[in-house]
């Protein structure tokens, strides 16, 4: 039997809405910093990322060269790594936001339609999504790089194509969960038609999980984008990008900073988005968090 007690409002997480845990605060701060740095790259970066100073190649972090102090060192062409990292934020942000936006929108619509369709239609739709999922991502990316020149555009399309089915599956599952719920049946009894049900009940209840998935996928997209550039299928050098900086660095492993700096940058940002995704999930479900 259900105990006849309400969840006491004092313990209720919506009161905690304005309190943020330390790790989430740090994650949020880091994301904001990166965002600002990326948008205001010319103002934030200490030097010109593409300026080659051939006398100052492979300087370790902290060294002072002809152009000034290199906080994170220089690469094989004497370019300042810190500045390249800052400028590398832009293509990364473009790729991850576009790819997540495109994939999530497609996935959301697809999942909602599949979830509200009768069995045969829904089954067909999900089989298509499954087939899409079975295509190896790197193969797809290579194909796209061949068809459209490798770069930001091909990265966005590759990531979007590979990840949309995931959204579709989750959205469809949530849609089904709401569709078979008691409260939706009661809404039908109250007289709500299919469109109103969708607007008032299905979409709001699906949104939680969807939003969390988006934020977690931003983290995945960062890794994905960097991997694509690392393999030469994404942003092409000399345009700075964390992934292709990592690739260049593998040829100069004695100059560890060439690999470690972009590596740390990638990891930290992915972690930050991950942490934010977790925090968002805790906040969005009104009942989550209470024992």
């Amino acid at each position, binding site marked *: 039997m*259900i*105990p006849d007690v309400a*969840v006491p409002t004092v313990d209720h997480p919506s009161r905690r809405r304005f309190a943020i845990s330390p790790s989430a605060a740090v994650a949020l701060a880091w994301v904001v910093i990166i965002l600002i740095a990326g948008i205001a790259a010319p103002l934030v970066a200490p030097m010109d990322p593409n300026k080659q100073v051939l006398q100052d190649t492979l300087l370790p972090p902290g060294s002072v060269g002809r152009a000034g102090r290199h906080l994170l060192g220089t690469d094989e062409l004497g370019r300042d790594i810190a500045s390249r990292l800052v400028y590398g934020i832009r293509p990364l942000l473009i790729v991850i936001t576009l790819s997540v936006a495109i994939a999530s929108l497609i996935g959301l619509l697809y999942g909602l339609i599949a979830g509200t369709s009768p069995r045969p239609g829904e089954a067909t739709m999900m089989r298509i999504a499954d087939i899409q999922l079975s295509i190896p991502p790197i193969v797809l990316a290579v194909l796209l790089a061949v068809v459209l020149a490798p770069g930001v555009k091909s990265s966005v399309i590759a990531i979007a194509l590979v990840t949309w089915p995931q959204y579709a599956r989750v959205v469809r599952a949530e849609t089904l969960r709401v569709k078979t719920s008691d*409260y939706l049946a009661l809404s039908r009894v109250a*007289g709500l038609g299919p469109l109103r049900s969708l607007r008032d009940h299905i979409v*709001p209840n699906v949104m939680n999980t969807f939003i969390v998935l988006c934020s977690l996928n931003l983290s995945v997209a960062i890794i994905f984008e960097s991997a694509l550039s690392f393999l030469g299928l994404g942003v092409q050098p000399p345009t700075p990008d964390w992934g292709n900086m990592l690739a260049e660095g593998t040829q100069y492993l004695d100059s560890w900073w060439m690999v470690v700096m972009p590596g740390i940058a990638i990891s930290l940002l992915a972690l930050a988005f991950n942490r934010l995704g977790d925090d968002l999930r805790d906040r969005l479900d009104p*009942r989550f968090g209470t024992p």
Partner: protein
Amino acid sequence: MTDPAIPPPAPILATVDVAKNFATGGQTTRAVAGVDFELVPGRSAGIAGESGSGKTTLLRLLLGIERPTSGAVQFRGHDLASIDRAGRREYRRNVQAVFQDPGASFDPRSRIWRTITEPVWMASGLSRKQRKAAAADLLRSVDLPGRFATRHPHELSGGERQRVAIARALSSHPAVVVLDEPVTALDVSVRGSIINLLLDRAGAVTYVVVSHDLTVIHHLADDLLIMFKGIVVERGPTRDLLESPKHPYTQLLVSSVANPLYQPPIDRDDPAPIEACPYLHRCPEAMPVCSTLPGPTNVDGHTVRCHLYPDTEPPPVPVSVRPPSNLEVSP
């Protein structure tokens, strides 16, 4: 009993030989197998049965959230399958429901004021402001404070939520409220007040109460239908049925409620063949003729499906459930 010269009031809800089958993993289950049911305004009905009896499916058919496999569900004489838009609106305004689990009956993301006014909003088209005001009134009508309107469902206890569910069902002033196990999920000390709440409103509304608990039906319903494996085995005024049950299954149920240690005479689980009386394997009075399904007969005012009561006279068919006059009707 009733004077045959005065026709009974027209049924507001009815089923005509309605059946519902479910296909699960290759097998077809007959949840409801040919049920004739009429709900007359002013006489609340209780539908009792155990798991697998089909009572929940029948309830869902009455509410139009399940389509019959065969047969018809009628609202004021109109078949729900072919009702027009205006008719559907009337139907939705007049037939509301309260479900068993107060936790699952509420959209967790909607505040109470939205949920509690959904039926009246759909029926009368209220503005947002009007809905909030109506919500406060509805809450007070079930002895809950108006400030609950802005809360989320999980901030209320189970008993409080069930009160809200009842207020919601009554919000459009329906003719019928269908209740599925209205107090089963609640603490024992709270059940009495919910039953009273329903009794207080029984003048304006006719209830259909579905429950496995005969004591709840005893308090809320004038007529009682006993279901077993998809068919109605006995039907009649509640008190008569409880005092002198005719069908062996009804007798078993009443005995079990009266005596918790009552042991049914036959312990068998396997289902009876489709053409037979579904109670065949568990019935202490089973006879060879029970391998065919008995038709309904009238015994002392109860309608019973049992070969123990040979076909004397079929129960009278209410006026509005008869087929339209342009078809041949055999005498």
